[in-house]
């Protein structure tokens, strides 16, 4: 054990080297993301929670847009007293971030006055502002949906000419691209408009509970606060609804375990009116509820249920069986609400005085007030909008591939968003001049080099943190969003080089279970899951819910006890440990493991 007071530090940024042979790929990222000598003096940590894999050049737009918006909210809009924004750097495709704390007491006092005028106004007018937020967000989604299809006809369509449009199609490529990018950056401002305030109100109640009840589990506090009708439950509820409708319409025999979604749909298309009626129901569910990504939505390859129906369809046969056994599959919302009320009342009763109970009431009231946003924003931002955005970029990829820039549509994500704009201008120019574009000579080699670099980076060692360890972590953003404390850094330092059959993470959903591990790296593999298996994956999110009925437990590399996966796992009573950092790399497929969801420990048994 390391003494927590010992002066210890992680490797300095300057001591890390770019993986040999990938220097050009590394230099593709913008200059302001590259480490410099000055960065050695600061503490950085690897943001494995949001960016667990090397980032392709385009995907870095998520870090850029998110930190631009997060920092603006903290530094300039709500003026958090003790912290400004989050700085970020990229090395070997990995995103390192560092807080920017405020330590001067006079400056903290000045910012505190600003904070109270701003943040308290938000808390006081939360419902009204949140309603406005939803309207803004839905308008933004509508704008993104209304963007024209990305295409370049050989000749300008006659109707454009006769309508006197006067602006040719190549210009609209640029406009659509810039609007897409602008919308994505704007979306992240919406994302952070309430986020820190929401988490802060929740953390206030959480910290109180931990003080009043030192051994209370994170999950219990979460259960006292979590909403019952949050958007995150909807996608899975829609799958259940579709299973119910399949039985009601008597088309359930088309859903055979293991049959692909497209085969099921083809078979329903030949099933007459009732088949068509079910497919119409499917359409209703898809828009908008299947706009949910299999992953956190930060990578272009986190596709949505709408892009790939295999996830929701994998759940339907199991639900159909439950319906046939007489289960309603409706979430017992009233019962869950009554249970939550009882839980809150029971803990309240344990408090020592009316003074404490008064404070408890004040804090939980505020936590309940902010929580619909905390739970709901992800569906609109990280899922629905992000999905629209990446698919729009994919349209540019297809067009550029068609013009010889790329061998494959997906290659577009190997360009930074600046480079992509240049490629689009290249194509626009070529379309106007009638000369061939330059890109086909230029991009394929770069794309190949960058793809190769990402493969190498994925294998390279990634220190969890860099630079000197701060005495205390007093940055509410870092504590709240990443769960990083001085104690967790000491654990990281102690864990360097340690060998153990135990993997620790966040206790997400209590219960102890043993079973064979099924290490699943992509949605295509979900058919390998058998009843009683323990799902081991990088990110568990609500999109996995339809298969929760089948498995015995879940373990993920990424996620916190308040993550949506944790909330859904608790509702299913499925033991789960999330945020282990390394489960998918340390656990081998088929190994027997024990998941202790109450303690947050996974043990490899063989």
């Amino acid at each position, binding site marked *: 054990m390391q003494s927590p007071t010992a002066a210890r530090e992680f490797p300095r940024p300057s001591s890390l080297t770019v993986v040999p042979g990938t220097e050009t790929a590394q230099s593709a990222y913008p200059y302001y993301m590259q480490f410099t000598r000055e960065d050695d003096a600061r503490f950085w940590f690897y943001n494995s929670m949001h960016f667990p894999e090397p980032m392709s050049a385009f995907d870095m737009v998520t870090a850029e847009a998110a930190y631009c918006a997060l920092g603006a909210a903290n530094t300039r809009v709500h003026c*958090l007293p003790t912290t400004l924004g989050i700085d970020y750097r990229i090395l070997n495709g990995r995103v390192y971030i560092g807080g920017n704390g405020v330590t001067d007491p006079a400056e903290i006092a000045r910012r505190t006055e600003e904070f109270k005028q701003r943040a308290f106004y938000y*808390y006081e007018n939360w419902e009204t502002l949140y309603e406005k937020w939803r309207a803004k967000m839905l308008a933004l989604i509508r704008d993104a949906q209304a963007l024209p299809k990305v295409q370049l006809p050989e000749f300008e369509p006659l109707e454009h000419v006769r309508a006197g449009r006067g602006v040719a199609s190549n210009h609209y490529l640029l406009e659509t691209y810039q609007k897409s990018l602008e919308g994505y950056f704007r979306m992240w401002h919406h994302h952070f408009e309430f986020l820190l305030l929401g988490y802060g109100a929740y953390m206030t109640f959480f910290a109180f509970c931990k003080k009043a009840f030192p*051994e209370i*589990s994170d999950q219990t506090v979460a259960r006292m606060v979590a909403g019952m009708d949050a958007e995150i439950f909807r996608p899975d509820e829609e799958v259940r609804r579709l299973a119910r409708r399949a039985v009601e319409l008597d088309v359930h025999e088309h859903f055979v375990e293991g049959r692909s979604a497209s085969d099921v749909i083809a078979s329903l298309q030949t099933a007459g009116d009732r088949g068509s009626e079910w497919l119409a129901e499917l359409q209703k569910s898809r828009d908008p509820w299947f706009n949910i990504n299999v992953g956190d939505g930060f990578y272009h390859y986190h596709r949505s249920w709408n892009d790939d129906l295999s996830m929701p369809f994998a759940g339907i046969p199991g639900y159909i069986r439950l319906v046939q056994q007489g289960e309603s599959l409706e979430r017992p919302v009233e019962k869950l609400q009554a249970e939550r009320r009882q839980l809150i009342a029971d803990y309240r009763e344990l408090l020592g005085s009316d003074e404490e109970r008064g*404070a408890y009431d004040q804090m939980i009231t*505020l936590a309940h007030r902010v929580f619909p946003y905390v739970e709901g924003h992800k569906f609109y931002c990280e899922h629905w909008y992000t999905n629209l955005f990446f698919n729009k970029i994919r349209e540019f990829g297809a067009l550029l591939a068609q013009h010889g820039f790329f061998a494959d549509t997906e290659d577009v994500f190997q360009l930074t968003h600046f480079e992509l704009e240049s490629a689009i201008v290249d194509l626009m120019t070529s379309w106007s001049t009638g000369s061939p574009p330059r890109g086909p000579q230029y991009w394929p080699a770069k794309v190949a080099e960058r793809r190769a670099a990402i493969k190498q980076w994925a294998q390279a060692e990634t220190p969890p943190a860099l630079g000197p360890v701060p005495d205390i972590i007093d940055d509410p953003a870092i504590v709240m969003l990443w769960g990083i404390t001085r104690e967790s850094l000491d654990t990281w330092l102690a864990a360097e080089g340690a060998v153990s059959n135990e993997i620790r993470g966040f206790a997400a959903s209590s219960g102890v279970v043993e079973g064979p591990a099924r290490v699943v790296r992509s949605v295509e593999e979900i058919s390998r899951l058998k009843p009683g298996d323990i799902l081991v994956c990088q990110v568990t999110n609500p999109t996995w819910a339809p298969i929760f009925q089948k498995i015995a437990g879940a373990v993920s590399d990424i996620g916190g006890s308040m993550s949506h996966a944790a909330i859904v796992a608790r509702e299913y009573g499925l033991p789960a440990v999330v945020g282990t950092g390394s489960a998918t790399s340390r656990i081998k497929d088929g190994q027997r493991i024990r998941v202790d969801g*109450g*303690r947050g420990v996974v043990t490899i048994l063989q």
Partner: protein
Amino acid sequence: MSHGIIGWFEDVTLRDRAEVGGKGGSLGELTRAGIAVPPGFVIRTAAFEQFMHALESAAPVRTRVAALQPGDLENIRAVSGELRARVRGAALPDAMADELRAAHAALLARGAGPEIAVRSSATTEDASDASFAGLQDTFLWVTDADRMLERVRECWSSLYSVESISYRRDRGIDENVVAMAVVVQSMVDARAAGVMFTRSPTTGDKSVVTIEGAWGLGSAVVGGEVTPDRWVMGKITGEISVRDISDKHVEHRRASGGGVEHAEVPGARRTTACVSDAELEQLRQVARRIEKHYGCAQDIEWAIDTRGSLLLLQSRPETVWSARDSTPAAQTAADPLAHVMSIFGGRR
């Protein structure tokens, strides 16, 4: 209200503590609260008084103790030896012996089994829960009425042990107020037994129940002869947050012919949990009921018999954390929003 020397559990409460002792009062209280306790009765302090009165009429007892100097171990030892022998050897007054035999028969008639436990139940207020508790006696698997009478005198005589006399002399306790009640109750044929606390012994958390248990009788756990299995459960939620299953090498169990033997636990049973999750859930629920009944944190002894029934043997107020002046986690604020500054305001 005049009492006989016998008080059945269902007729006594903690308010009768001066006459039935802490243990007896607690068992009465639990019985009356509808909690499963092995049936039994308390031999009130009046019996001890009558017995001592008879004994004093032959030769002085209390004045002999009162005359001892604190720390005079040599004389304390001599007087203790003499007085204990007298208490153990003297016959009970006939009427008292008859009444006790009748109560014993009535207890057996309740069908809880032929064997009983005889336990001392102290009335001294100060430190009765802590240091003094260890100075008294419990006799298990007592097989018949004659042996019961012997054990009752044995309990009484423990008041004149060297430790007990020293303790009183050191504190200047008046010998005339010293008295003892004795609990007689059906013996639980324990498959597993232990203790539980309705607060965390380590953090004082009121939202957890800490349960410790081992195979056989609880005496092995209470006496520290075995490392018990240990669980921490959410008092409200029932979540099991700690589950330490230990190597329980020994168990206290019934010896053939009465009394207790210490038996080695064989093989895999040593590292098998002595209580199932369903039983833990029962323990949690009963802990909550008892705590609610008393309105304060409790330190509880429990047993699960060979038929799987959960029985409570003792409950007393938790003293360590209750004595600590805990600062409230937060005060009600004039502006409810002010609380968020505990997160946003910085810790410096």
